[in-house]
């Protein structure tokens, strides 16, 4: 069967009324939560994971994918109207979008962001559909050592390659790896680091860590800043619709943004930020109105927003085909799969094609729903921005603990939530990135297993790890990605890298 047939099959799954309803609930919830200030897609996904606990796998994952895409749309609304980007990938959107809103062109800014997200999301999801089977074919020849090398590469790119300090990224990663060791060793059944506490035998839940880090850590950090004058929400004056001129200036940036975003998301290279920055720089260079940049240029909203959404779809390529999460959001989605005992990877395409292709088709449907939901109903979402901060965070903490209580209502689990929350606060305070600890926790045990399998196949010969060309090349890239930034920073050229910091999604 060709990709086209598979997609048709997927649409047959996705067109089920219940599935459509789940997708609709997902995108609505995702937009509603994503639009709240200070909440990026990673936190949206982590907070809403418990909503899906009681459903069947297909419905739950499709709702979940809707939440992910919805969170991305919601985030752009916040950054345009409030100038507090909920996620680092929206920083650029805030740059030009908020300026446009201040000039009374908030409507067209939101429209170009929403339509750009739609165009980019649709193209990128189609690219995902066509690329995924190829990667799956490739992945079938991957053995344990290739997987191990791939995971090492993911560790390095998530933690050390970008951001302002290799050391801080690595500290965060190793904390995650240390937490990953808690529980029963899957190969020998030995209990590790559980200190006789039965609740620790199952290991540490990724969702507990993610919610604590993103929700509690953020809430504690914001609270500790004391009273600040609230940010002003820019009212939308005039029409939401874009003029002919706006369309003419937007469509090329949308396509270019997609071209930047998708490959960067699909590579195990971490966050969506890099694509948005590249897109912004390119639009600024190519624009016929370079003088408008910094004062509200529509290209500067259209391109980066498209790049942002395209790279979100891109991260699904390694996640679905290899089971490799390359961002915190993807790590939480992987946890979502695992709660149903599903392991994304080449096997899932063979054993559960309806699920995978239903998911991909639902993403296309979710995109259509989102653009419909976002443009006419924008006034409703803007209302959400005016919720007073104390109610907002009280509600966030309610939902943050709800997920943990729902999964495992034990004092030990809540205690961990609290400790990790304080840890997340401390890490935020001193500029340690959050994504590596989450990725370390979920990928750590997988990397260890692959390593031990690879060594067992080779009877304990460590050189086996570099004897396959694929593994050797991947490890070499990882080494370069680790060492090059260190050299650049030591020579005082680290600014570029810290601008590309991947700290949230």
């Amino acid at each position, binding site marked *: 069967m060709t990709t086209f047939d598979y997609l048709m099959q997927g649409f047959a799954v996705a067109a089920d009324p219940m599935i459509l309803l789940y997708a609709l609930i997902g995108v609505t919830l995702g937009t509603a939560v994503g639009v709240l200030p200070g909440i990026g897609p990673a936190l949206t996904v982590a907070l809403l994971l418990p909503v899906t606990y009681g459903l069947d796998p297909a419905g739950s994952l499709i709702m979940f994918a809707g939440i992910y895409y919805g969170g991305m749309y919601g985030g752009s609304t916040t950054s345009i109207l409030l100038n507090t980007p909920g996620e680092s990938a929206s920083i650029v959107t805030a740059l030009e979008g908020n300026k446009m809103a201040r000039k009374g062109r908030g409507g067209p800014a939101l429209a170009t962001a929403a339509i750009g997200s739609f165009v980019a999301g649709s193209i990128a999801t189609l690219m995902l559909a066509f690329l995924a089977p190829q990667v799956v074919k490739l992945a079938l020849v991957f053995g344990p050592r290739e997987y191990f090398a791939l995971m090492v590469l993911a560790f390095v790119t998530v933690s050390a390659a970008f951001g302002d300090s290799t050391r801080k990224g690595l500290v965060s990663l190793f904390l995650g790896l240390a937490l990953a060791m808690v529980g029963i060793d899957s190969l020998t059944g030995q209990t590790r680091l559980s200190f006789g506490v039965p609740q620790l035998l199952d290991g540490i839940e990724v969702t507990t860590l993610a919610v604590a880090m993103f929700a509690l850590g953020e809430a504690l950090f914001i609270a500790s800043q004391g009273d600040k004058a609230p940010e002003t929400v820019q009212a939308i004056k005039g029409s939401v619709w874009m003029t002919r001129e706006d369309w003419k200036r937007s469509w090329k940036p949308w396509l270019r943004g997609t071209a930047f975003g998708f490959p960067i998301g699909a590579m195990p290279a971490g966050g969506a930020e890099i694509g948005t920055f590249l897109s912004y720089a390119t639009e600024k260079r190519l624009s016929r109105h370079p003088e408008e940049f910094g004062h509200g240029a529509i290209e500067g909203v259209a391109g980066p927003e498209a790049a942002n959404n395209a790279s979100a779809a891109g991260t699904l390529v390694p996640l679905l085909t290899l089971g490799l999460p390359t961002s915190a959001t993807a790590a939480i989605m992987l946890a979502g799969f695992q709660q149903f005992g599903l392991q994304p990877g080449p096997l899932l395409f063979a054993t559960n094609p309806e699920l995978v292709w239903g998911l991909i088709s639902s993403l296309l449907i979710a995109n259509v729903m989102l653009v419909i939901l976002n443009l006419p109903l924008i006034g409703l979402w803007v209302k959400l921005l005016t919720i007073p901060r104390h109610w907002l965070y009280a*509600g966030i903490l309610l939902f943050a603990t709800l997920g943990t209580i729902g999964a495992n209502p034990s004092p030990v689990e809540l205690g961990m939530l609290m400790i990790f929350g304080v840890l997340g606060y401390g890490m935020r305070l001193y500029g340690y990135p959050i994504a590596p600890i989450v990725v370390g926790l979920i990928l750590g045990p997988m990397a260890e297993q692959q390593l031990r399998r690879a060594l067992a196949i080779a009877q304990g010969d460590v050189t086996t790890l570099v004897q396959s060309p694929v593994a050797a090349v991947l490890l070499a890239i990882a080494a370069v990605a680790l060492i090059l930034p260190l050299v650049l920073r030591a020579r005082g050229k680290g600014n570029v890298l810290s601008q590309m910091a991947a700290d949230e999604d």
Partner: protein
Amino acid sequence: MTPPVAHATRRPDGAALVITAGLCALGAVLLWDAGRLPEATGYSGMGPADAPRLIGFGLIGLGIWTLIDGFRSEPEDPPHQHPMPVLWIVAGLGAQLVLLSTIGFSIGTGILFACTARAFGYRKLLMSFPIGVAFSLLVFGIFDGLLKLNLPGGPLETLIYGG
């Protein structure tokens, strides 16, 4: 890269020392725990103790790196902190943790709700606590009833939603 002269006499910042101590302590815990595991290495030559040992050494190494960085570079000044709001939230979480199993989800979470609102400057606890309880009850109804999440109920939940 040579640091300016002024740095040579400067004390390292306290945060770096604390972080170093924390990382080394955690590394030591991993090494200690790895030490009591059997060396069941099988064919791979790598047993259950080896990965924790590697990570333990990694943490200690990163601790030392943090210490060196602390001596060499400018201390990082985090933005000015207000400790009270942080304590309010932590206290709310603690109260919920302790009380959850006895008084149920709604009242326990209502306390957390009120404490968090207090941390963000809303002082009228007599308003925020009932709002929190009512909101939690609603959430309990939706999640425990409709979405089949198993939340711990207490007297209040039994009263309203039945046993």
